[in-house]
């Protein structure tokens, strides 16, 4: 469903252009979980943001092809991209505290994507609340009613991250992009989030692009993995292959 080809991203914030991402190729099939693993500066987040159409900064250039079910993300007009965001792509950021608005209730933020498209979708307030609660329950927020009425600081980090996943999922996107969603969380909470994502993938067939610096998390969740370093793809393959016999020295180093 998603094809990335020859993706190249360059920065111009200094005198010389700086390549952040180069020659990145990979595909995600329907219902697949793909992991991108790399250290800081490897370009993994840049790639994810480019796929989500979030790279609109003027000081960088993008070239190559990002094709999501026939839509050319890099060259489509802004209005088309905005339609895709939320509808077809959901995005979960690393830090659940900073990616939530502290003065809005959690429920309102989960509904946000629906509210923007209220007219096209013909949803009433009750419909939206019903859908929000449904999604929140599906990501393992058992007392969804209470959390719906809470502010972000009143719930725990794990609950916040699940609420963010719920917010990304309300419009049933085909692809969920998770940028280090568990890095800021404790291991026990991390495991629950991973379980939620796994279950979600199994139940609804949503494809997931999971970005992490932690190979063991990728191993627990993903079907295939792309290893990135300094903006380049180092290695690609099924999780089993990569773990059982990594062909590159760098990958070996990453496996703790």
């Amino acid at each position: 469903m998603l094809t990335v080809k020859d993706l190249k991203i360059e920065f111009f914030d200094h005198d010389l252009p700086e390549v952040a991402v180069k020659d990145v190729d990979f595909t995600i099939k329907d219902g697949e979980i793909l992991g991108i693993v790399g250290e800081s500066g490897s370009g993994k987040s840049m790639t994810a943001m480019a796929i989500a159409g979030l790279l609109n900064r003027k000081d960088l250039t993008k070239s190559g092809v990002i094709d999501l079910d026939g839509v050319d993300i890099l060259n489509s007009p802004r209005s088309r991209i905005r339609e895709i965001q939320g509808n077809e792509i959901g995005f979960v950021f690393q830090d659940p505290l900073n990616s939530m608005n502290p003065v809005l209730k959690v429920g309102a933020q989960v509904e946000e994507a629906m509210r923007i498209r209220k007219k096209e979708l013909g949803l009433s307030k009750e419909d939206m609340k019903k859908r929000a609660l449904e999604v929140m329950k599906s990501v393992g927020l058992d007392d969804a009613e209470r959390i719906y009425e809470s502010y972000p600081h009143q719930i725990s980090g794990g609950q916040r991250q699940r609420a963010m996943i719920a917010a990304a999922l309300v419009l049933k996107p085909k692809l969920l992009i998770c940028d280090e969603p568990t890095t800021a969380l404790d291991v026990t909470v991390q495991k629950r989030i991973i379980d939620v994502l796994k279950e979600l993938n199994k139940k609804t067939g949503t494809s997931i692009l999971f970005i992490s610096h932690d190979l063991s998390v990728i191993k627990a969740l993903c079907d295939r993995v792309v290893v990135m370093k300094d903006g380049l793809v180092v290695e690609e393959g099924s999780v089993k292959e990569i773990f059982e016999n990594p062909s590159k020295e760098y990958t070996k180093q990453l496996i703790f």
Partner: protein
Amino acid sequence: MKKIKLNNQKKVGLIIVFIMIAFVLLGFLNRNPFDLMNKDLILKGPSFSHLFGCDEFGRDILKRTQTGMGISVAISVFSVLIGTFFGTLIGALCGYFGGIVDEILSSIIDVLFAVPSLLLALVFVSLFGSGYLQVTLALGIAIIPSFAKMMRSEFKKQRELEYVKMAKLLKIPTARILFVHILPNVTETFLNCMFIAFNNCILAEAGLSFLGIGVQPPLASIGTLLSDGGGYIRRAPYMVFFPALTLILLLFGIGLLSSGESFHHAYSKRFKD
């Protein structure tokens, strides 16, 4: 290593400020005395020998503007220095220690803050008489509260950072932590505050002199020049125009200097993945 990177606004600001300084310094080459009255030159318009024209007593306005500007700048510089020194000291102590020290000093600052600075200066001048010394002191005191507030919040932020905790663990004397370790990290706010305070000072001094309680004649400052010229604005508009123009240019230049972002590029964290 430490590159001071100026953005375009700052560059333009710097150029304007240099021009204004040169303008004041060139006054020393101008051989027309600033207080020499000349019956023949009363309200004579700009000419080659008197570029800015002459005032109601036949004095050269160019020379008077140069002198006046110099005095205005000098008053402002000294009051900013006074304000900066005490403001930083109070702000640093409040922000770094917090607690009871902060409570006491902050409430004093708040009281000072509640009184408009011009009013404060007026009270000061009426108590101690008018003159440039009094004006300098009055303006200096008027600056302290806002400076202290800014510095307080900056020091409060820095206090929580780990390098300060590290310095504390090493038992480095508090004064050294405050002014050698922390202060260089707040230069940005510090400089911007100074520029803004300087601009306010120039304006306030002009205001006070305009009201006749600042610099006393025959000495001139921008304020007295504007006030003198105001009376002849129909017959001799150049009397107001030139001093006002220099004032605006100076304010503009300094304002540009305090605009934009970082002075120290080296400190800013790079955006990377």
